[in-house]
């Protein structure tokens, strides 16, 4: 595929995606997330070494490298987390999609209203997927769902530094099960209320 053609397709895709979500100014696109420098939050703590005597060990000498330079803490580390406040506002998605459905927008508006009335609070959006996808594909898809919700919050006037995102992929299903009745409840974005300690 030629570059120019690909670029055109990419731009077209962008236009289609933007049109589909209905946000003409696409305010949230490429809004950096808070805490964009690597930071240590306490110590990672050690993991276990591998006892190579127990198995067929390798004689290769590992090399150590320098530590992480920046020590900026996460933007809302240590804040109190409340997963129940916005339980009714969990946003559901279509299969393999991160587009916000029109019927789901009022839930995001309700969270935005709360944040407008509680200016010290922040929110973490957690994206989830059903099991019909490979694990790392789903991890990325869950993040896009969280980011799409974040963009909608930003469009509604919430400062992007008040909205964290993360993805659990398919690792934290809301409902166990292997059919659409479970899947439709697992394709979701949940809101965790964060308040300063």
């Amino acid at each position: 595929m030629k570059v120019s053609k690909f670029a055109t397709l990419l731009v077209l895709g962008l236009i289609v995606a933007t049109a589909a979500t209905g946000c003409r100014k696409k305010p949230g696109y490429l809004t950096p997330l808070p805490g964009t420098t690597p930071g240590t939050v306490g110590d990672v703590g050690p993991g276990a070494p591998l006892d190579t005597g127990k198995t067929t060990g390798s004689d290769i000498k590992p090399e150590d490298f320098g530590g992480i330079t920046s020590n900026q803490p996460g933007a809302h580390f240590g804040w109190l987390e409340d997963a129940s406040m916005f339980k009714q506002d969990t946003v559901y998605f279509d299969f393999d999609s991160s587009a916000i459905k029109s019927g789901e927008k009022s839930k995001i508006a309700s969270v935005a209203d709360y944040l407008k009335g509680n200016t010290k609070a922040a929110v973490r959006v957690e994206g989830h997927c059903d099991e019909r996808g490979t694990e790392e594909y789903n991890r990325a898809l869950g993040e896009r769902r969280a980011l799409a919700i974040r963009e909608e919050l930003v469009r509604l006037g919430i400062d992007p530094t008040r909205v964290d995102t993360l993805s659990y992929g398919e690792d934290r299903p809301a409902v166990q099960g292997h059919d659409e009745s479970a899947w439709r409840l697992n394709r979701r974005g949940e809101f965790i209320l964060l308040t300063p300690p």
Partner: protein
Amino acid sequence: MKIPSAPLLCIAAVLAASPLRAQQAIVIEKERFEPGKTKPILVSLSGLTGEAAQVLQFDLYVQGFAFTNADAAQYLLSGSINGNLTGRATDRYSKASLVAKSYSGGTLRRQVHAFADDFVKALGRQGIAQTKIAFKLDTGANSEIVVSDFDGFGMQEVTKDNSLVAAPAWVPGRLALYYTSYKLGNPDIFHHDLSTGARKIFARYGGSNMSPAVSPDGTKVAMILSKDGWTDLYVGDADGGNVRRLTRSREDESSPCWSPDGKWICFAARINERRALCKIPASGGELQRIATSGVLNPTEPDWSPDGKWIVFTSMMRGFEICVVPAEGGTATVLVSGEDPSWAPNSRTVAFARREGGRRVLSLLDVPTKQYKDISRVSGNSGSNSQPSWAK
């Protein structure tokens, strides 16, 4: 059938003349295999029973051998255990002795693995029976990173965080891993030195830090980050510095891997609403599509160490392990499964199979399509997935 069997016939002919030249002929056969259509090489076994026989049969089955009786086999294997293992391998046609060794030390399993490797090496191939895999063990609510021998034995948990982990990736040639951990409340990427247990944060940016893939020389790590507002492909130095963004699109990118020369990063993307495998220069530049004709929704690519093949998962009705020439072309569907990882021999891959509600790991010989599940040792009753084969 005619094409793949032709080299085997040649080998048989050359073998009869000279065992030395036969080895060269087999090297050629190995490099020209046709995925999924190659016939297994027939071997027979005498003198070993029980665990020793099981270990040898597993080791060779997942490298494209099939066991038959001595009248039909191309190679005759025999062993005896008198405290230690004595192993022999003979070519039935040329009568040449390929292996005649006794093994001491370690366990019986290790001695048999070493014998399997010696036999495979005598045929001009790379042995894999003493290699390791890392994978994700789902313990119910949580998951941990575990490392085991390639056949599932000797399993050890290397994380004990009671958190979630994902996507372990070996540093080539070193006893070290990168993986995603949720231990600090966010999906971050850790570096874990397996010789000391020491861990460091590699990437902890806002949003999700996902899918690390280490360059063949160990100096760079490709990954998927969302720190700039969407999920894109990034590459950084092994210590976490110099993180650069390689893609800028609202389309999705996932599951990067490296070409063995370190020049390209291959990943799954969506172009114009259709999923495709792509590659981009590791230093940044133009995206190129890798054709995977005949299958849909390719994801989770892994580039073979010899540079010739890309194995990947196709998401159609279910998940299928497929392979395509690295330059792109017609894809071959191999078996149902997902998340393939090449062994260092560039012919066996580890992958995850769904069985009921959980996943099990299996090893697939790509040329013959033979596959067998790895053993579940005690303590491993959960879902096993995301294998990474140490190279």
